[in-house]
């Protein structure tokens, strides 16, 4: 049996009459109420627009930083030193006569030297500049010609690279062990006399232990990224000052002071203090820290934990970190890209 339907036609007429009547009912909202609604709406609109811009800006900046890091870390580090045909010829000349000056073995490895390793030891280059390498050029006196400058450069460059390669071997072990390794290396006959001079000079100046930016005392670290804050997506930027406490061992201990702004809650910034430890196998850094964060102006507090990986190019540090913050109110976790500069 078909269920009976309610005939809505009379209700429909009554409804439409009622709608007509409702026009006569006094308004429930005052002009002030409606103006307040519009004002709130405008505030929300501006807030959403600003948040959208921040998201877009944050994502664009993060992508740019990521591309830069990938380019520097992966692409450039893999590029061998490019030599022009003239340079190759001069290298060949040096190589053919190098037996006399005992640099043949290191020169054979010149092609292994990459811009990255050369840059790492840029400070050793300045140390080399103070050496008297006139004797090195003696075998080339016959060829002293308009090409003198290039030959000089190549020979100097060769010695520099010899030192770089030697430093790489020594620096595989740092600290006290590294010093012992250096002494052993200097005692061995694997270096040319000029290479030995360079190494000795570097040792005297203690350059071996400060040649990489990571070992310097303080660096500023600017980071930005995407996090989840109080259950909502957010973007954040922060600035930290990191002071390295132990700069001579394989593990570096440091203190970190920072400020972070969360854009979904523009009124809030977080001040933080952390102690951390980093492992530095010369160029790729792994670090983690544990710290306290205070929210301004509410002064809620949180405990946070970071784990990060980074890479150093000269005085610059590029990193990616994950942060987790334990707090009843602040609650923030997410991924951040960072760029640091060693002071």
């Amino acid at each position: 049996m078909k269920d009976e339907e309610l005939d809505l036609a009379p209700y429909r007429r009554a409804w439409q009459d009622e709608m007509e009547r409702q026009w006569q009912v006094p308004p429930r909202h005052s002009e002030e109420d409606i103006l307040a609604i519009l004002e709130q709406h405008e505030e929300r609109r501006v807030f959403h627009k600003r948040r959208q811009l921040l998201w877009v800006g944050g994502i664009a900046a993060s992508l740019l930083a990521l591309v830069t890091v990938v380019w520097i870390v992966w692409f450039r580090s893999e590029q061998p030193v490019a030599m022009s045909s003239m340079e190759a010829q001069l290298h060949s000349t040096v190589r053919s006569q190098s037996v006399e000056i005992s640099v043949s073995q290191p020169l054979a490895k010149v092609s292994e030297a990459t811009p990255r390793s050369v840059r790492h030891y840029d400070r050793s280059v300045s140390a080399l500049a103070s050496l008297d390498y006139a004797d090195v050029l003696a075998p080339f006196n016959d060829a002293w010609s308009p090409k003198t400058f290039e030959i000089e450069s190549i020979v100097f460059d060769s010695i520099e690279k010899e030192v770089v390669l030697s430093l790489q071997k020594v620096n595989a072990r740092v600290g006290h062990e590294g010093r012992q390794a250096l002494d052993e290396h200097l005692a061995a006959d694997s270096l040319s006399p000029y290479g030995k001079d360079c190494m000795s000079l570097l040792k005297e100046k203690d350059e071996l232990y400060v040649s990489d930016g990571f070992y310097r005392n303080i660096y500023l670290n600017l980071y930005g990224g995407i996090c989840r804050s109080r259950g909502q997506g957010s973007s954040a930027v922060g600035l930290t000052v990191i002071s390295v406490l132990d700069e001579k061992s394989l593990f570096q201990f440091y203190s970190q002071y920072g400020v972070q702004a969360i854009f979904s809650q523009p009124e809030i910034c977080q001040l933080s203090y952390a102690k951390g430890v980093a492992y530095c196998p010369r160029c790729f850094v792994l670090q983690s820290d544990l710290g306290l964060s205070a929210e301004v102006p509410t002064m809620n507090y949180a405990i946070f934990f970071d784990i990060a990986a980074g890479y150093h190019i000269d005085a610059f540090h590029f990193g990616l970190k994950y942060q987790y913050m334990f707090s009843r109110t602040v609650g923030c976790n997410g991924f951040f890209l960072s760029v640091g500069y060693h002071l």
Partner: protein
Amino acid sequence: MTTKERQIKFVAEVRRCDPIIYRVCKLYGCRMDESVEDLYQEIVCSLWESYDTFHGDSSFSTWVYSVARNTAVSYYRRHQLRQPKVTLVDFDHASSDWADTSDSLVTELYKMLDRLNADDRALVGLYLDGFSSKDMAEYTHLSETAVRTRLSRIKVRLKKMNDILKRKGEI
């Protein structure tokens, strides 16, 4: 005309239409007063955002009603998953706050609508406003056949509700 002047003019005009906006909120919106107020605010914001598109082709009140109804339908679509489903089992516990009309048929209608879920209430609302099946299908993203079938089922439920209410002497 400056933005401030436009705003003042808009507020005065919207205020004249306040009762009808409120009524649309009640029909399409939610059962809770605060949700009705949320929807009212959303409608006012929609009206303000599209105020520039009003060129006087129809009366201001017709335009307000149209925007209010569209906003309310969108609102109900967004919030329909959060709506409590009211079935005949809940019938005795459902409350009615529609008693501000002098028309007994409308009072009856409100009491029944109050016991429908938001989906069904919106569909009945469109029907009461005189929309065709085609228009209702467009608003609800259903096919015309589905709209007709669903409306038919709602009418059956309303009939049962109506019988129960009559037996209880509530209408």
